[in-house]
């Protein structure tokens, strides 16, 4: 498959500061590609280089297979949905959408026809003469996309366009954006700091940190098979320990955490005995059982970590409710509250047991993670 967008070893530095250092990416035609990262990770600089608003210090950008070196922003086959949409307040909806076509010097009748067609596609057929401030947040969003799509760009760039919307609308727009992308079949490149936006909509996600790509993969890859401690910490929730490897056999590890817990874990990259490590486990991988003295229906296997603790607090949040469990060593661990415990009045301070599989306990070399290192 041909790539609509390709970046090769892209670098952008401002004096001594390097905003983007050596990023390469390839976005196949018709796919939805997201760049996910915390603010200041360089994703905005990357997007602005692709759009042509800033000049790369080194590296190359190809859109539709054509090098963009020396091509000013107004001649690039990439259009952009701005963070705050940047709809022209002095023009009505139809004039906003027709703006790019007018710049191409297209005949008036043809512009009207195309604008009408695209308005129909975004379900705003009668809104052409409306002023921008008469539109709702979601409608503005659609107009901003239509304004680009009417130009039939090779790539559509979206710069955190959902950031300004309230929660409900944002959830709705995620679905709608994905549908629009399907409908137009255009390549979308989406930047965001919101992991759920990236995971829900994308075919491929690049996690960016400190000017570099940490990992590029499908949402499932990132979630279940994080390649770096940063990704493990940034995508989804995790409990994290600083730890030291006490024994190693292949990818099977035994580690001791800085709090003194002995864990079985799986190495993501080869780790030697004695090495400092960051260990992650997801809340939904932790099973909580009431320690009522009755025999365990499923006795712990050798590759499962089991700890006794006390329920410290219950954080009710519907399906995302959490049980916060204090272990004897002092660790406070959040686990997804199992359905069978949700309804019961499990008292705070109740004795519980938690278990999590060694396979779900991922060990990375220490340092360079999203939460900042306090490794031993």
């Amino acid at each position, binding site marked *: 498959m041909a790539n609509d967008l390709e970046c090769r070893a892209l670098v952008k530095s401002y004096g001594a500061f390097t905003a983007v250092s050596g990023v390469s990416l390839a976005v196949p035609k018709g796919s939805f590609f997201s760049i996910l990262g915390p603010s200041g990770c360089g994703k905005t600089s990357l997007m602005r280089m692709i759009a042509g608003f800033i000049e790369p210090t080194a590296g190359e950008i190809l859109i539709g297979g054509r090098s963009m070196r020396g091509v000013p922003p*107004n001649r690039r086959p990439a259009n952009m949905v701005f963070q705050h949409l940047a*709809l022209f307040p002095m023009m009505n909806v139809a004039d906003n959408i027709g703006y790019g076509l007018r710049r191409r010097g297209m005949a008036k009748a043809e512009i009207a026809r195309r604008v009408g067609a695209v308005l129909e596609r975004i379900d705003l057929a009668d809104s052409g003469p409306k002023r921008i401030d008469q539109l709702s947040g979601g409608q503005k969003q659609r107009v901003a996309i239509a304004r680009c799509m009417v130009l039939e760009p090779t790539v559509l760039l979206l710069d955190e366009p959902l950031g300004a919307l309230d929660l409900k609308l944002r959830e709705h727009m995620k679905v709608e954006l994905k549908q629009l992308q399907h409908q137009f079949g255009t390549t979308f490149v989406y930047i965001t700091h919101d992991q759920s936006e990236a995971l829900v909509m994308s075919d491929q996600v690049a996690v960016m940190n400190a000017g570099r790509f940490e990992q590029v993969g499908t949402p499932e890859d990132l979630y279940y098979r994080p390649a770096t401690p940063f990704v493990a910490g940034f995508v989804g929730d995790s409990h994290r320990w600083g730890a030291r490897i006490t024994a190693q056999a292949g990818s099977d590890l035994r580690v001791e955490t800085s709090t003194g817990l002995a864990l079985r874990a799986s190495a993501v990259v080869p780790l030697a005995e004695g090495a400092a490590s960051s260990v992650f486990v997801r809340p939904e991988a932790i099973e909580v059982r009431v320690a009522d003295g009755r025999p365990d229906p499923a006795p712990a296997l050798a590759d499962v970590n089991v700890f006794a603790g006390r329920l410290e607090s219950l954080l009710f949040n519907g399906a995302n409710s959490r049980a916060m469990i204090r272990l004897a060593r002092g660790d406070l661990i959040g686990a997804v509250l199992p359905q069978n415990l949700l309804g019961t009045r499990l008292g705070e301070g109740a004795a519980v047991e938690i278990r999590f599989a060694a396979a779900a306990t991922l060990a990375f070399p220490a340092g360079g993670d999203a939460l900042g290192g306090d490794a031993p």
Partner: protein
Amino acid sequence: MLPSIPAPRFVTFAYRAYVALFFVYLAVPLVVVAVFAFNDSLYPSLPWKGFTLDWFFGASAPKIGLFHDRAILRGLVNSLLVAFATTAASVLVGTTTAFLFERYDFRFKGLCYMLMLAPLVIPGVILGISILAFSSQIANAADDAFGIELNALRPGLLLVALGQFSFIATIATLVISSRLRKFDRSLEEAALNLGASPFMAIVTVTLPYLAPALIGSALVAFLMSFENFNTTLMLVGSDAPLTITMFDRMKQGSTPVLNAVSVFLMLGSALLGLVSVMAQRGGRGAAE
């Protein structure tokens, strides 16, 4: 003192009375001028001798109305000419200067900004004499050296316009800058992104956004030029703008034709005010 905080009744009353008195003070001179424009007397003073429109339309001496008073009409035309030239130049230079200070970083920017503000701090009379002296010296030098008579640099309408422009451009710059500062640069980027050249982005997006400020500064410039006296007085030649013509008449004592001219000017200003309110209203939709 606030509406939410109770105050003694007489304090509130006295305060209101003061405010009312203030507005009477503001209004009285203008009302007096306006009323005497319609007095059927040769002097703009009491007693009231009945209503007349002669001071507007009268055609025969001694009651020569404003529309038949050649000197006044010529002054009006001169004032309009100067005001149009000054307005055009001020808005043009004000716009480019607003872009200069809002969009570019350059060496000595702070110093340049102070120089841009300087015309507001220099008394109008001094602006007038400095331009008079400078242009006359150039004209003299050209005459001495090459025998060329540069009439344009002698006191006259061009110098008047130049003198007014020297400080009205500052006001235009300030008005336009304050709106340009509020402009969201991503709108221009969006225009570029949609295929506009940098020049077209400014023409199709930035200038329409600035329109209320451009119209507003044009109105203010026009009014300030039309009203200006101090700078104009120093630069005026044989062709006098209206304010100078009126000033000369006023010193001598005049018929109520001056009141009629004043009423005419008030109406003109009111019209400009109306235009500006409408421009602001039109611009509000575009502002948010």
